[in-house]
């Protein structure tokens, strides 16, 4: 089959690789009809996530048609149309049973490696480095899905791929980022990053009763979509200046209180300004720090006393100069985590069916799988108005 493979920093190629097969009894094989490039795939593309190997198949946002199921998979049959959560979860460990699916105890074959880095291993993820399992991803014609009796959800025929594809990651990710803050009606929510996750975060904040949502980004077309489609107020950090300027501007926008909830939807490749930006760039390049921390620093400093900081943005290792003094003395709550996608599949599908949201609003590019190398570049460079790329292997989709 054809698959999008990682070959090093800035180098992805469409390779011919063996078709996947059923390996374990709870596996299914899915023929992919739609697969997206995630902002977090760019962290792999830019070489910031360790333990990638040449030839690894990328992609963790995908859906398609079941073609084969293992002997233990009783809930699916060939022909079923399904979306697949990006975390792989066994469904029977303490964490899965506690609704904490992205912390599954059993799905990471390389758990020992993750334990060296993080103390304990979270769930395995599709196409996201060997640290979290080394699983082949879904930017391909077919994918092997482990624990298929637990993860994939059937989707109704009257919804097309564009409307349900993002249930696999970015919609639940944005939703969880807000929901886990215990949002109250009228709260002001500030969201760093108006990329795909940021946009779903903003839309979810509105859905969950936020009074005001402030979108923080310098990319014009993203900020515009946040305003026109999601009802956010725009804020351009580049115009404000350095971190202290950003904090002051947000204080002014909230009559001296600060946002109740601050959400970092940027992660480890934040663009800092001035001295802070250079500090992080040098340290990240020399591997003395594995993430650039501008977004998380600003979120902590800008948050009101007793407020909540939520981090859906991806971090891998270490970030310097995190203002723990502000976190502690202001009595902030910090909420983080890879998304427990399984928890949100049904409720968010219901919202799509009811018409609360049409998740396809942010798709700017629809391409064949062969276009992946160009699409990665365009998406990374934010050229051509690119906000979200969806690929249809073989040109087929529902």
């Amino acid at each position, binding site marked *: 089959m054809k698959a999008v493979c990682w070959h090093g920093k800035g180098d992805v190629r469409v390779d011919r690789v063996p078709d996947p097969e059923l*390996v*374990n009894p*709870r596996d299914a094989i899915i023929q992919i009809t739609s697969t997206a490039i995630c902002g977090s795939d760019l962290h792999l593309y830019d070489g910031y996530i360790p333990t990638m190997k040449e030839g690894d198949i990328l992609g963790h946002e995908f859906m398609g048609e079941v073609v084969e199921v293992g002997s*233990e998979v009783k809930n699916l049959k060939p022909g079923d149309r399904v979306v697949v959560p990006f975390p792989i979860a*066994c*469904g029977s460990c*303490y964490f899965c049973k506690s609704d904490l699916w992205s912390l599954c105890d*059993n799905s990471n*074959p390389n758990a020992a*490696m993750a334990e060296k880095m993080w103390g304990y291993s979270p769930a395995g993820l599709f196409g996201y480095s060997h640290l979290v399992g080394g699983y082949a991803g879904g930017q391909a014609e077919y994918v092997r899905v482990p624990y298929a009796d637990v993860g994939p959800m059937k989707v109704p025929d009257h919804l097309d791929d564009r409307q349900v594809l993002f249930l696999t990651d970015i919609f639940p990710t944005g939703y969880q980022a807000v929901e886990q803050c215990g949002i109250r009606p009228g709260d002001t929510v500030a969201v760093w990053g108006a990329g795909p996750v940021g946009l779903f975060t903003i839309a979810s904040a509105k859905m969950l009763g936020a009074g005001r949502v402030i979108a923080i980004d310098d990319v014009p077309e993203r900020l515009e979509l946040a305003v026109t489609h999601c009802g956010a107020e725009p804020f351009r950090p580049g115009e404000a200046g350095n971190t202290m300027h950003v904090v002051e501007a947000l204080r002014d926008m909230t009559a001296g209180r600060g946002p109740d909830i601050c959400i970092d939807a940027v992660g480890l490749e934040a663009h800092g300004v001035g001295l802070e930006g250079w500090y992080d760039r040098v340290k990240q390049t020399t591997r003395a720090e594995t993430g650039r921390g501008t977004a998380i620093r600003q979120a902590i400093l800008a948050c009101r006393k007793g407020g909540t900081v939520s981090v859906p943005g991806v971090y891998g290792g270490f970030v310097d100069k995190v203002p723990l003094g502000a976190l502690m003395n202001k009595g902030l709550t910090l909420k983080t985590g890879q998304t427990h996608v399984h928890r949100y599949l049904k409720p968010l599908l219901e919202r799509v069916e009811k018409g609360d949201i049409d998740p396809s609003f942010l798709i700017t590019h629809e391409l064949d799988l062969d276009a992946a190398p160009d699409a990665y570049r365009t998406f990374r460079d934010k050229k051509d108005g690119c906000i979200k790329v969806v690929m249809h292997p073989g040109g087929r989709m529902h």
Partner: protein
Amino acid sequence: MDAAHTDRHEMSAGHDISSGQEQNVGNTERMLSMAGGGLAMLSGLRRGGAAGLLLSGLGAALLYRGASGYCPINARIGRNTTELGRSRRHNEPVHLHAGMTIDKPAAELYQYWLNVENMPRVMSFLERVESRGGDRSHWVARLPGGRTVEWDSEITAKEDNRRIAWRSIEPSDLSSKGEIRFRPAPDGRGTEVELDMSYQPPGGAIGSALGHFMRGMSRMKVQEDLRRFKRIMETGEVPTNNITRSAQ
């Protein structure tokens, strides 16, 4: 499905990428390496220029040595300052301990472990185990290079749903004993499982295939065996990232 086959591939795949070298730097030395490496790297970065670059490079290498507990120079000259290294040098028995919380009732875990023929699925180095009736059994392990080592073992203690102990029977190529204990985890989270194994390295066998095998036994391998046990019990299978059955 060929479960044992799958596991084996997993172990080796996990091995190269995690730089799976065994630790050979002791704890005190690791802390010193990290502290010194950090200082050298910072002052190298501050100084700049070629000398600064060299210093920061050296600092980074020391930092890595401390963080990973692996030193290539130690490996080259056969130096090992860990606990395990010390006991091996003196031909002392190697004691390995691991613990795991498994979300299943103790009775189920106890029954599975009592059936010795299940052990090759749990312990990656085993080729097969045959029950010889009663509490006796015959064990066959693979050595690197395709050779095997065999020994007989007997169960020395059985306490219902709480504890099983076993040891090898003389004369045997390999002198080992082990014990597994089960106790209820708090708050209905299943069972806390603890595994203790000890091996007596064969006298004068350093350099032989068996000596090599013994030295390969590490806490991490025991921990991984216990993790495989947990996964078989909780999910019925051992996770793998292979996409084909034949690629193994």
